[in-house]
């Protein structure tokens, strides 16, 4: 059996695409690594929607989106939803997906494939970031969503971006307000970002941000601004957080410097990518419908460029409309007229993005750590200095550096180090970061066991 549309990921973009495509009569299969729908932003929302710490759009709009998806699954001939299932290979010629689920490995044929694989947090390679109890801010938020859990003792947040303030407010409501926020936004960044505008159309988002900042400060969180020289120190476990001009004891350090598209699968599939200079990251090349130049493949949501969950919902619907048009279920004018409200949404929810991108642009030391001793590849424990030495030996890009150093050959396959290695190589050669290129990962996209491979039908 061939599914019309295979959607990888059950976050806002994937859920929205599935609902829209099923309503247009397409057979839809949703593949998701998580056991429940919602993606990272609405993770575990069916269980945690009433947690007062998570009150807000998570418990309202998030819960509603997942409810609509569950409703669409029940509709006969609707959506084949496969949770706890990982895509580990995709044959783009045959339209054949290799999946690993709880019942072992299977294959699935699809007429069109939508990657809705979302974002990951940008690596924050500061000295000591591999110490136990140094985590990402997103990790702490996931623990709150999936288990209701909060960090014990003195918690320090460090970095910049809306998520840090959101998390600070949520932890405060959960009775575990962070002690300190070390904000790395440099002096003058706000003034430089103001001309980007978008404040009137983005006023709801601005008001939300201001409310979060106020709530976190009211709960007793201190803020240090313009922080540089951030480092974590400890003896096999985090003890102290140190920065230029200060230090503090800490039991948990939560790092965040924004999110970047998760391009692991789109890169492995050989899709063309473009460098997004305002967001300092790569994103797959897509048209206004999320379609890539490959006839089988589309990308929607944060995986195609960071825009947040509301933009992802709109982009998912647009990709579904385009899939219906390509599969002959919708005429072009039908697709275009149905797209109008989604395009209006995109215009509204992306209005503030240029301002946020300028204000929270990661500093050069985040992209390419200054100290040679800083670990950049967490798996193989390769330092910034080793990457710089490889550049001197002639490594021009991360794929070459991988052969020199094993950066990208550990279990994470370069998800954590790829961007940092490229930035260090570019710096050493005096080139802009995109000139260094990006890692080309290969299948399996996630590790599988030999047994799972052997169990494949016809294997």
């Amino acid at each position, binding site marked *: 059996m061939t599914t019309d549309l295979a959607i990888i990921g059950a976050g806002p973009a994937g859920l929205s695409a599935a609902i829209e495509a099923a309503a247009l009569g397409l057979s839809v299969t949703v593949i998701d690594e998580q*056991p429940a729908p919602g993606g990272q932003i609405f993770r575990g929302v069916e269980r945690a929607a009433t947690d007062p710490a998570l009150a807000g759009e998570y418990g309202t709009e998030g819960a509603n989106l997942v409810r609509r998806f569950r409703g669409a699954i029940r509709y006969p001939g609707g959506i084949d939803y496969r949770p706890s299932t990982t895509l580990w290979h995709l044959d783009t010629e045959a339209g054949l997906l290799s999946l690993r689920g709880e019942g072992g490995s299977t294959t699935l044929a699809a007429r069109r494939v939508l990657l809705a694989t979302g974002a990951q947090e940008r690596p924050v390679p500061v000295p000591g970031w591999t110490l136990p109890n140094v985590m990402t801010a997103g990790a702490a938020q996931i623990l709150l969503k999936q288990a209701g859990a909060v960090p014990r003792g003195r918690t320090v947040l460090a970095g910049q971006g809306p998520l840090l303030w959101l998390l600070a407010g949520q932890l405060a409501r959960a009775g575990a307000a962070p002690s300190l926020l070390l904000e790395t936004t440099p002096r003058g960044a706000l003034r430089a970002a103001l001309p980007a505008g978008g404040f009137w159309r983005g006023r709801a988002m601005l008001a939300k941000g201001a409310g979060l900042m106020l709530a976190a400060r009211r709960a007793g969180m201190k803020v240090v601004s313009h922080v540089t020289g951030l480092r974590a120190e400890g003896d096999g476990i985090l003890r102290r957080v140190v920065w230029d001009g200060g230090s503090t004891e800490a039991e948990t350090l939560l790092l965040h410097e924004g999110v970047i598209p998760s391009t692991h699968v789109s890169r492995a599939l050989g899709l063309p990518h473009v460098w997004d200079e305002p967001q300092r990251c790569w994103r797959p090349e897509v048209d206004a419908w999320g379609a890539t130049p490959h006839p089988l493949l589309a990308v929607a949501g944060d995986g195609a460029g960071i825009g947040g969950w509301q933009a992802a919902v709109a982009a998912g619907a647009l990709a579904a409309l385009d899939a219906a048009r390509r599969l002959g279920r919708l005429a072009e004018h039908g697709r275009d007229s149905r797209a109008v409200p989604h395009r209006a949404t995109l215009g509204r929810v992306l209005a503030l993005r240029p301002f946020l991108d300028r204000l929270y642009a990661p500093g050069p030391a985040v992209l390419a750590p200054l100290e040679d001793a800083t670990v950049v590849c967490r798996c193989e424990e390769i330092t910034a200095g080793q990457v710089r030495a490889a550049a001197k030996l002639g490594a021009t890009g991360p794929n070459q550096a991988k052969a020199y150093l094993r950066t990208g050959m550990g279990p994470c396959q370069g998800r954590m180090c790829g961007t940092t290695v490229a930035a260090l190589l570019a710096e050493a050669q005096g080139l802009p970061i995109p000139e260094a290129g990006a890692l080309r990962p290969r299948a399996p996209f996630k590790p599988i066991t030999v047994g799972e491979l052997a169990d494949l039908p016809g294997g």
Partner: protein
Amino acid sequence: MFLPRPEPRPATVEVFVGDAPVRVPEGATAAAAVLLAGIPAIRETPVTGAPRLPYCMMGICFDCLAEIDGVPNRQACMVEVKPGMRIAPQHGARVAKVEA
């Protein structure tokens, strides 16, 4: 180390982290159980033996690799807890196991 909040999320599933029983809420992952158990490390790295705990909690960093119900090198943050699940730390590189 993380603390549970039983008011919104009662801890109803008992799992074992190492040999110690830990109760965690439904929907939590093995990595959450590790952090709630409060152990100092879930693995030591194959290269230098450095201790690690979960870092990203979303399947990206692979720092939460653990032996879960006898299967090594599993991403603990991607595995939902089940009653009686056994989550064991990993020390250094794994040795291939051949099953008869």
